[in-house]
């Protein structure tokens, strides 16, 4: 078994992309940390020759779902809040809008996009994680990507406050 450090080096960024797409940028660090801490503990028991990337995405899925479920339990409904422009402006407006759009995807689409396009997990394995047919996962992933296709984030240097 190679040292765990090389696992973090190789897959750290990939797991972060997956976590961030599933739980959003605010909770992504928690999801990443819990994923790698759990992976470190279980690492010696991972069968030699296992697909380490798929194993990590599976752990990231469980940890991220835990965070989402805990958040939805903690959320207290307070009725509709009218949308109004922030008085402070938002230096990261374009990106913030994107995360809103990702969060607004149906969960199945969001997870299918995260695990397949960002996590490199084959549709068949995503279907095992999420249930349902491989075909339905393939469709969810492509619907999710299509919903994001025409969305662009302004480049940093062009951004104005």
């Amino acid at each position, binding site marked *: *078994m*190679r*040292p*765990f*450090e*090389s696992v*973090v080096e190789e897959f*750290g*960024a990939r797991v*972060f*992309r997956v976590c*961030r*797409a599933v739980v959003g940028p605010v909770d992504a*660090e928690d999801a*990443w*940390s819990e994923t*790698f*801490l759990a992976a*470190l*503990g279980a*690492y*010696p028991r991972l069968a030699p020759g296992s697909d380490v990337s798929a194993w990590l995405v599976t752990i990231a899925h469980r940890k991220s779902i835990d965070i989402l479920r805990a958040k939805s339990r903690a959320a207290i409904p307070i009725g509709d809040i009218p949308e109004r422009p922030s008085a402070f402006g938002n230096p990261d407006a374009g*990106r913030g809008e*994107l995360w809103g*759009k*990702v969060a607004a995807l149906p969960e199945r689409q969001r997870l299918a996009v995260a695990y397949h*396009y*960002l996590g490199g997990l084959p549709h068949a394995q995503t279907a095992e994680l999420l249930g349902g047919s491989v075909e339905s996962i393939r469709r969810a992933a492509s619907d999710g*990507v299509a919903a*994001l*296709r025409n*969305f*662009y*984030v*302004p*480049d940093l240097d062009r951004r104005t406050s």
Partner: protein
Amino acid sequence: MTTAMETLENVDSAQLEGLHRALEDSAARDGLLDAAYRTLDTPIGNLLIAATDRGVVRVAFASEGHDAVLDALATRLGSRILRMTSTRGVGGELDAAARELDEYFAGRRTAFDLPLDLSLATGFRRTVLGHLREIAYGSTESYAQVAEAAGSPRAVRAVGSACATNPLPVIVPCHRVLRSDGSLGGYLGGLEAKRALLALEAAA
């Protein structure tokens, strides 16, 4: 403009470094690590320093191939190994080892005051390492003298292989062992490194 998918792909490396540091802390707190390591630039090249919770367990020369050394450590000690970038916990012990090595190479330190984990050496080899630690800074012994001191005067060859497989070179001073005729003998880090260490100690 950047596409949505490109933005989803983009990860800030500074953020990953912060996450790595946090992982080091949590792993150490939960006692999850079999070993931790860092590297140090020295006049004899980049050294790898690895430690367990018992002490410094391995010092390795660049010529040994640090990746190969880490793979071997994973086999011997366990695969839960992380590079330490923070200076807390195990990282602090590695930091202390790096500081003492720095002082040694600057000629400001003649003895190491570090907890050592000798578990990578067993049997006679470990006995030899125990004796090597008693050879004072700036002095040398022959392989035959070390064999005698280790209680096996005829085991000169075995002393040679104990030195050649010393898991803690520089800290456990196998560079202070020479052939009976005064020639250098061998050195895992290369004869040039051995010559440099002996010159450093002679000059101090």
